[in-house]
């Protein structure tokens, strides 16, 4: 679930008030001025959304329970681009 984050909360989270307070306003998962599609869901649709969220959390928990050594490089695919000569 997205939760609108305040500058103060952001400051607490990143443990650096000055950096967080310097972030542009608003700090949120959605573009400014856009209503969340969630707001227009019916009761049944909200129930189904909640079910999806639970399924994703279960999946995340299963991965959290894995033994992953510190420093394990995530499997992103990325290649540095060298400057053109």
């Amino acid at each position, binding site marked *: 679930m997205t939760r609108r984050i305040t500058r103060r909360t952001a400051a607490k989270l990143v443990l650096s008030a000055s950096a967080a307070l310097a972030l542009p306003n608003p700090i949120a998962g959605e573009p400014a001025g856009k209503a969340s*599609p969630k707001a227009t869901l019916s009761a049944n649709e909200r129930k189904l*959304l909640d079910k999806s969220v639970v399924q*994703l*959390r279960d999946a995340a928990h299963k991965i959290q329970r*894995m033994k992953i050594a510190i420093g394990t*490089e*995530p*499997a992103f695919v990325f290649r540095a681009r060298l400057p053109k000569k």
Partner: protein
Amino acid sequence: MTPDEALDGTVAQVAPLIRSRQLSPVALAEASLARLETTGRSLNAVATLTRERAMEEASTAEQEIASGRYRGPLHGIPYGAKDLLATKGIPTGWGARPLKSQTFEEDATVIRRLREDGAVLVAKLAMIELAGGLGYNTPAASSSGATSNPWDRSRWSCGSSSGSGSSTAAALVGFAIGSETWGSILCPSAFDGVSGLRPTYGLVPRTGAMALSWTMDKIGPMARSVEDCRLVLGAIAGHDPADPSSLMETGGPEGGAAPPTSDARAYRVGVVRPAFGKIYDREVEAAFEEAVRAISGLGPTVSDAKLPDLPFDETAVLIITVEGAAAFEPLITSGRVRELVEPGAKWAGDAARSVSGVDYVRAMQARRLIQQAFAEIFDKYDLLISPTMPILAAPLAEKLEKAFAYADPLGSGGNLAGLPALSVPCGFSKSGLPIGLQVVGRPLDEARILTLGRLYQENTEWHRRRPPRAPAKPA
């Protein structure tokens, strides 16, 4: 051989006839367009017919061949492309109602390469909306409606490359291009009884293709033989500087499709018997065991293989959910997601946002361990085989969460690790539905996969069967 009869053949069978001018590319394109217009429409396999472009490309092919400029085995062959590959000036709707009239100014790299090899684009083929990127629970989740299976029209062709599977099986096209993030080439290949190849991640460029999951999307051929898959892969594979994920090293002069030179008798083949439980169709099981015996009889060393206990499916779900929601963010925030057929797409963005950045990176770490696990498996085996799907083609009316309620570790794990895989027909149910055999290999080891697949098809007849023709409608 008439153009209509030729259309039932494979690329490898038809190409010499075109080269020797016994078969006209223009006549072949007309035959293909006629089938697409009738059978294709009735199967819901077509997104857009590309008649004008097809006739222009076919005429060019005919003139070039007449003047001695033969470009190779795809010259003059009609093909269809999944409707997520950009084609200049022709709608590319990604199977989604809100994007139905979307057009691009350039061809996708794969389309351009096929044009350079003289192939003739006859249709953009139906697909599940956004390739299932915001989830789907019914075969009807497409702007084209549900695509029927030509072997039984009350059954689904599978997705998301629905039209590519259905039209290749019904011989409406010489071959088709599909794409896979998790199962979208292999499942239609199994359900529709065609040969389909999911290439190594990064082998085939995605420039001009819809992005669902940047770290998992692959583009590959679907055809009526393994040899045809090899020919098409040879045309579309290879580095593309415009695609940041495109591999520099592609495993050989034909980009992973190098002609098989090694002896398949030296291969070590691991058999992954799925723990599908009750959902494992007994007819699929019987056909698979017969295929194992057949492969064993061809010479390779065959023994049981076991996948480690890792959260394959969960990792794939998290990564695809998050990347899909990011890919389609403009549709989500604009509210146009509500125009999609799948009701769940409305809240897919909110669901995806419940996954934290940490969870996503952890999933990517898990993915690294999954890659390592497969590398260890491939120390012992050269190839893995398994049923492509544990079930027969699902009824069109069935909810997919019910039909597909089983773990798919080789499917999810293979895609997470970027491994190439092939599906070939290995039998039929008593009711006449195709059954697929999956062959998985090391990254960039397409040549070995194709060698085993070709050897299997040289010794079996399953891939030669064609679905029944629909009765002609009265005038």
